[in-house]
């Protein structure tokens, strides 16, 4: 078998997840690329017959968490409340007639702590079971549930604060 062919089948989903996680097209594709390269460099560690998708998400998680750590150790402080960042990030969506709520989703997600964002997306977007998420992130199921609970509630509050009439403005 050629694991490359196998990997290719998972690329679109890895990209979708990465895009939601990182919210920047180039950076999220970087994340996917790093993940694929790491996967290809250690294919011998993959047990044939086990779940390739779970394995890939585990690798992506490790790559992602490393990046988050590196970024925070560089200690460049960027305020998440800085509205100017938001404007530029959102500009890409202009062609789409998406609802305000959906467009604000990118922003709201980025305000979740990374480990909550992962769980919320793996469950909500990737539709993994709690057990699958626990395996992929190598954490106990109880931790999955508490991160999900906190993350999703926080996201809900953020989105509720972004309803029309609230201070976030519609981007042209």
């Amino acid at each position, binding site marked *: 078998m050629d694991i490359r062919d196998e990997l290719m089948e998972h690329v679109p989903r890895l*990209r979708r997840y990465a895009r939601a996680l990182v919210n920047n097209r180039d950076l999220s594709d970087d994340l996917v690329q790093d993940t694929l390269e790491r996967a290809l460099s250690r294919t011998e560690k993959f047990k044939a017959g086990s779940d390739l998708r779970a394995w890939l998400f585990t690798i992506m998680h490790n790559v992602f968490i490393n990046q988050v750590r590196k970024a925070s150790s560089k200690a460049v402080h960027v305020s998440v409340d800085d509205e100017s960042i938001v404007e530029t990030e959102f500009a890409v969506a202009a062609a789409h007639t998406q609802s305000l709520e959906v467009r604000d989703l990118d922003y709201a997600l980025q305000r979740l702590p990374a480990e909550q964002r992962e769980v919320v997306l793996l469950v909500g977007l990737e539709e993994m079971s709690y057990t699958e998420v626990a395996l992929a992130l190598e954490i106990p199921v109880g931790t999955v549930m508490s991160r999900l*609970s906190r993350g999703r509630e926080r996201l809900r509050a953020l989105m509720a604060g972004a309803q029309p009439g609230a201070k976030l403005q519609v981007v042209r």
Partner: protein
Amino acid sequence: MNDQPVSINEEDLHAYVDGALSEERRAQVEQALEQNPALAAKVSDYFSLNSMFHERYDRVLNEPVPARLRPRKERNWRDAMNWPQFAGMAAALVLGVGIGVGTNMGRGVPDSGTGMASTTQSSDTRPVSADSTEMFARRVAIAHVVYMPQVGRPAEMGQGHEEDFVRFLSNKLGTDVHPPMLTKSGFQLDGGRMLPGKDGPMAQFMYRNADGERLTLVISHRKASSNTTAFKLYQDGPVNVFYWVDGNFGYAVSAGIDRNVMLQIAHDVYAQLTSATAG
């Protein structure tokens, strides 16, 4: 206990949204939701968040995968996994590699002087039958052309890995697959690989004879079942494809060799596969 609803915690609400509760617990949560509009609103928001994720990010699934995300160490045809792209390259290869082993050059092959572009065009504009089995045959022909130039033993099946590979294919296809023996006709099994297909994965087995002529057998697991069909012939340039459908599976034998020989082989394949599933 009847008046007082059982206590529902935050995690129950999430598990409810994610369909992770037992039947009994689900009923309890539903009861609580009926009695508590605030809880119901919360749960409804959680559901909305999940659908918003899809609304917002599912479009990434349809974006073409950038070149840098296609595994690329060996730069060859196998890395082109998108069928449309595949087709284009295959059309180019028909001319470029000149694999006309047999002499059955059909009317479909234009004058070689017209170059690549016109070949691509002619294959694109050829009326495509709505018949999905014909589409299948066409893909098989393309796959045959694309992979045939790899003269060496394909990496996918090294010596001794045959069993592993067959098991792997069987898993992917959801059935026991045993590549038929075609030694009687002079062809040795040479390799195999998994191909993505629109209707699900396809297993491709490659055979080669002493003269270096190649033959591929493709088995595809179709989503829709249909009755057994007769052998049909599809011809794409120098490549002849005999294909047939049997229940959930589509089979195709492709080669650039004499049709009568191929038909014989197709019968042989059919006989072996039928006896394998029956046994």
